[in-house]
């Protein structure tokens, strides 16, 4: 959960990697108010397609309601949005907000409580 020592405030807190071949966006770090735009931009080119889009959350340490909002907005434009391997606080948040109420959102690999 800790931020690496020497991390400057100006450094990006979120690392976004896209793998177009598997239609996956990998998030590492923290998804918050300052970083949701980059996530939404990375996801956007993958949305207009009938195949599912996957967001790999295994390396994501933190998400708040602004991240949640970005996920919901993206899900509206996706055929199916798969949220893969949410861990720790991210898993708790997704569980708390019951995101699978959205018909086209699937959570896979959620740890047991």
């Amino acid at each position, binding site marked *: 959960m800790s931020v690496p020592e020497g991390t400057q405030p100006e450094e990006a807190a979120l690392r976004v990697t896209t793998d177009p071949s598997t239609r996956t966006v990998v998030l590492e770090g*923290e998804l918050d108010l300052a970083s949701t735009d980059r996530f939404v931009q990375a996801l956007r080119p993958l949305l207009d397609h009938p195949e599912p889009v996957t967001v790999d959350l295994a390396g994501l340490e933190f998400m708040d*309601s602004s991240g949640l909002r970005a996920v919901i907005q993206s899900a509206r434009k996706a055929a199916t949005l798969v949220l893969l391997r949410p861990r720790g606080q991210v898993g708790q948040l997704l569980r708390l907000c019951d995101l699978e109420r959205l018909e086209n959102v699937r959570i896979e690999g959620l740890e047991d409580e």
Partner: protein
Amino acid sequence: MSDREIDSMVASDCRVRAHPSSVRLVRQFVREQIKSSSFSDEEADILLAVSEAANNAVLHSGTDEVHVTWRLQGTCAEVLIRDRGVFRHRIPMPIRDEQGGRGLPLMMAVMDEVDVSPGSPDQPGTTIRLRKCKNSNGS
């Protein structure tokens, strides 16, 4: 970033500019406090609530500084998030589901106590008080 004004055994302070990039600094500050106390089991809940409160201050208060205080009271931790702005009451309605309003419900879901002392146009300055006690069932 933390200027300790009050007895450092009791409370620690941090002031950041009201900007989206600062919310992460607020979390770093709170993480440090959690590390030097014994609230690691409550860390995820506290960090979420603090971020939501800081988001509100950054997005809606219209002020340039957010002031965060961490303090311990027995087996409970309290975080105060203060701005100098006017509080906007927001209720999440289905029709505006994408526009936020989730901050306070989330804070209340994961903390034991949440209260808002709202700033008004006559008396600006909103304080959100978040309280989390050990071995509670806040989440």
